[in-house]
């Protein structure tokens, strides 16, 4: 399943790189890519795991940039 999510308040480019690498390590993520310029997170995940993965991705982002929110 592919989904495009918006990352609000993504202010730091090297943080985006960190987030991308950690989200890729979440169980069930096939691929994750962050566009710092477009403030988008492109997720490809295994079926049925989307909600859980987004929750975890949100935690990852908040840990690295506290103001960063995933909206969809």
């Amino acid at each position, binding site marked *: 399943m592919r989904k495009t999510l918006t990352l609000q308040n993504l202010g730091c480019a090297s943080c985006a790189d960190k987030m991308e690498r950690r989200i890729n390590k979440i169980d069930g993520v096939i691929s994750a890519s962050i566009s710092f310029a477009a403030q988008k997170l492109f997720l490809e995940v295994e079926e049925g795991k989307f909600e859980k993965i987004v929750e975890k991705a949100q935690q990852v982002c908040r840990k*690295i940039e506290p103001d960063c929110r995933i909206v969809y």
Partner: protein
Amino acid sequence: MAKRQKIDIAVIMATAISLFVLLIVPVDNSAKLIPYIAVYLLIGYEILFKAGRNILSGEIFDENFLMSIATIGAFAIAEYPEAVSVMLFYRVGEFFQDYVLDKSRKSISDLVDIKQDYANVEVNGELIKKDPHNIKVGDIIYVKPGERIPLDGVVIEGSSSLDASALTGESMPKDVSKGDSVLSGCINLSGLLTVKVEKPYTDSTASKILELVEYASAKKARTEKFITRFARIYTPVVVFAAAFLAVLPPLLIQDASFKDWIHRALIFLVVSCPCALVISIPLGFFGGIGRASKRGILVKGGNYLENMAMVDTMVFDKTGTLTEGTFEVTQIVPRNSTKEELLRVSAHAEGFSNHPIAESIIKVYGKEPDTRKVRNVEEIAGHGIKALLDGELILVGNDKLMEKHGIKYDRVDKIGTVVHAAKGSVYLGYIVISDKIKIDTKGAVESLKREGVHNLVMLTGDSERTAVHVAKEVGIRKVYSSLLPQDKVSIVEKLLAEMGKKKTLVFVGDGMNDAPVLMRADVGIAMGALGSDSAIEAADIVIMDDKPSKIPEAVQIAKKTVRIVKQNITIALFVKILVLLLGAFGFANMWAAVFADVGVSIITILNAVRIYKGY
């Protein structure tokens, strides 16, 4: 202005005034410690808070932490005004950085946003605006003059002219009336249109293009990958250098004071922030992608812009790319039969094909071929068609087909595509079909040569004579003719092998039958792709209309993007290394360090803006 920004400005102003007052009040420095701490907390609480939170979650090399350590360190060596002012400068820098970042992000997204966020529908005799996500296929929507078409559909009432420049980059209006298909993203210029929706919002052209462009920014260019990898090691290296600088020289060098060297180390900490290096690079590539899409050129990733900028060899498919691809019968030469019979046989053989050559023959035949009479149709790639017409074997195709079946045919030396026909073993004659060169092909080839693309190659399935004629006309010297589809791949592979390392090969085709070649090339460009999902799918760069002049334009945009991105990397690295060196030898202060961080960010972001401005 957002509430947050107002608070930021208030805090910055308050700090600046307090700092000024503290500096001019004639009291001993140590007595000012408490007021300085107060002002420092005012300007720095947010950074300190974030740093604290990030340490708890294990993030040490982040910007907030580095700034906090640097400024607290300045307090520790009794440089109070410096601690406060560095934090102040940093906040001011961040404020402007966020401002220009937001602005440039917004202008790029405006550049690529071709979606309409509402659709007019009729409810109880009244027009109301509805979220286009909730419009279903088959629904009727109304598009007023001046509005963008929200969803793909068919006009069922009204007539108007459309501006498709958002899709193609060309503002020539196109007239539409009842029965015509219309694509989302076009602007309705004159009359009210009633449109029956044919595709849901998310599958409509405008949404698809926007999605493609946004997704492209996530496919990172090599330069971007390199700089983020570099930033990953840069920060820890500089931080460790700072640690050594604070401790070793005072121990090893006589007369060296800890205070002085700690000060130098703090400069290192400020310069170690990685963001200034990285921030403008993704922005630059997205700007390039955005600018291209504004011109009807969809680039599917920053890496393709990079490859395009290094183009050395450009290979064109002839038909439909350099030429119109609309064929016209220019000669009918019967042998052993009549003109009518020759046309009848040819038209019936081609009756199942929608190839432009087939269409042109059927057009001249003037009637619908009776396909019930035709059986066992066999299309032999690169040869032609073999079938049974009224139970009799017919062969319609090129020289190779005739030779294969041992038919004696006329060797025709004419410009154009020659289609021979035979019934049983009797040769019926041939038809000559010619194609027109597009008006801007020649100009495009010249521009490409000016851009330094000297190795231009043309591939075609047509005969050598036609191929050479077209190539000469447009100014291409290398020609491969009489090719079968699979030959194109092997020629591209051969050309790739002949090329130097830092150079790339670009293939331009119509995206219909050349998917394997498009994939094999470093950059595959599909032309005239508007409305053809398969062409958009197969290519790396998609040119929405069919103008060859867009190809040199794409090269220019790619080169400009890469040039500015490289400039930005050079600026950022140069300033950072310079300040590190000056700092290490005691010639730089912490203000210079803050400039090397946020100042450089701002300069490089503004430089990146040049990529999509000025067209």
